[in-house]
């Protein structure tokens, strides 16, 4: 008999609090992780734009000037930290090491539980990024409503990112290891999400590459929305795409985990 959806919201709220407590148990580590992982892609972009525009003498690339690029870099910083963390890696390690056993016996969905604990610090960062963005909006020329919409997109991106990661992590049920596949996924995300460079820099006939993955919804789409580059109808179209990806992600998790858990051997003692 299908037990129906789990409507216990208390455990979700408790898991959210617990995840936040866990992520911030070491304050300096948390701060360093946030600042460090935001600064590195920004530094890479800055070096690239300096090389192209200042050293290479370019004045415009794909319709974007040096200032446009720097602007993109600054705004993308507001969103890069919101896309998922490494909780899909945590899932594959749990399968590999057998520590999944503990979670499987608890009366809640393990995939959802790990996401909720992982998203807790991301929600905190979303709030922080939103406040920062709103404070800087006069300088960066951002419309507050656009910024809030963009944050919403970034959060949907977080869910899709985790869903795809969780589905891929399930390969560990078959291969006993899923690290490499998640690493490759993350490299693709770095390239195709727009956190390293604006996706408009792709050759026009290769735009289908990033458009056919959901990764652009993590950073590139929020930046476009925040900068007011997309019309409301374009936003709605991309929201529709995001919702389709959410359904695909949910389906992939149901399929991969449903089959995977049947193969689980609970190794390691």
């Amino acid at each position, binding site marked *: 008999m299908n*037990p129906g959806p*789990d409507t*216990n919201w*208390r*455990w979700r*709220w*408790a*898991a959210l*609090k*617990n995840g936040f*407590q*866990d992520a911030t*148990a*070491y304050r300096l580590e948390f701060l360093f992780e946030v600042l460090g992982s935001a600064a590195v892609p920004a530094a890479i972009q800055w070096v690239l734009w300096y090389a192209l525009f200042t050293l290479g003498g370019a004045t415009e690339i794909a319709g974007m000037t040096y200032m446009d690029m720097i602007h993109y870099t600054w705004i993308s910083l507001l969103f890069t930290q919101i896309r998922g963390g490494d909780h899909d890696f945590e899932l594959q390690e749990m399968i590999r090491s*057998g*520590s999944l*056993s*503990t979670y*499987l*016996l*608890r*009366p*809640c969905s393990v995939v959802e539980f790990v996401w909720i604990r992982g998203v807790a610090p991301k929600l905190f960062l979303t709030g922080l990024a939103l406040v920062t963005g709103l404070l800087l909006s006069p300088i960066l020329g951002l419309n507050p409503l656009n910024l809030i919409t963009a944050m919403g997109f970034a959060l949907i991106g977080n869910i899709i990112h985790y869903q795809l990661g969780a589905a891929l992590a399930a390969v560990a049920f078959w291969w006993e290891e899923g690290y490499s596949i998640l690493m490759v996924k993350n490299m693709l995300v770095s390239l195709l999400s727009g956190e390293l460079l604006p996706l408009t820099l792709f050759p026009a006939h290769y735009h289908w590459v990033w458009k056919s993955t959901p990764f652009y919804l993590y950073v590139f789409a929020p930046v476009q929305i925040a900068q007011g580059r997309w019309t409301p109808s374009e936003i709605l179209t991309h929201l529709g795409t995001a919702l389709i990806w959410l359904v695909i992600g949910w389906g992939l998790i149901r399929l991969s985990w449903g089959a995977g858990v*049947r193969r*689980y*051997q*609970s190794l*390691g*003692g």
Partner: protein
Amino acid sequence: MNPIIQVSNVRRSFRSTKKEEGLKGTFKLLLKPEFQEHEALKGVTFDIEEGSFVGLIGANGAGKTTLLKILSGLIPPTNGQAVVLGQDPFKRAMSFRKSISLVMGQKAQLWWDLPAVDAFELLKAIYSVPEKLYRERLDTLAELLDVKKLLNTQIRRLSLGERMKMELIGALIHWPKVIFLDEPTIGLDVLAAHKLREFLREFNQREKATIILTSHNMDDIERLCSRVLILKQGEIVFDGDPRKLKQSDECRLRLRLMESPAASDFAAIAHVPETAIEISGPTANGPPGDVADDEGTPSVRITLKRTQIAGVLQAVLAKYTLIDMTIEEQSLEKVIQRLYESGT
């Protein structure tokens, strides 16, 4: 009374890759992996009544943990059927998950960087334990295990014993009806293990919870379990009261003699096999044994059935001069060791 656990002809096998030694083996594994099948359980059948405290004993690889994993619903049996609380464990129904608990001594279930109390708060919400009941249970458990002062300490800063106690609290906060404990006293010092045992005994008696315990520590089994299942290479070789196991088995008769018999002569006179005899102290035709231990007189230890004692004594007294004698109780560990070494 209906059994709370019913296991019927349960078999479980695992398939794994086989790697040969060295670099050649590594390449072979990459290009043409070979698989091997291992049968961890070979048709196990038993029932367990509600409120029982049952020990699962066996050497490494005997199938104890596999059996616990099947009973808790982590893995399905390859063949046969397991029913726990009237349900198929592997379906892992919510009501089933809320009624059981599995504690693995070698696996942490709590969150390393958080104090235990934060983890318990989360478990309270997961198992929908009402606040008042949660407070009462936490108080009771922390009191029984003597860890009240440590509830706010980060798990990673606790000693192994303290951590294990916290793991137990985490596993019991929802008051499970069936508890599976896999080596709960592993790595604990004597005092901590004793405390834990006392606690488990009290919990079992007070709450009538059914507890299945695996342990290599025979103290755990002897002091807690009214029934033991001994697994050997995936099969049950004994199912019953551990005291019965000791009683029905052999004891050791220790005799101090004036003479120094040779083991072969003594065996012939006492009508027992030579392998059942240990002689310490000076012997007639062998190297001196542990003389100091036996005050310079030969001491003979014979492993025999209780029913044989009178006959052996009669035969020995007819030939040798006895200084004193004692009947030594066999330790459960020895009995099990012998059970393992025997062909049965």
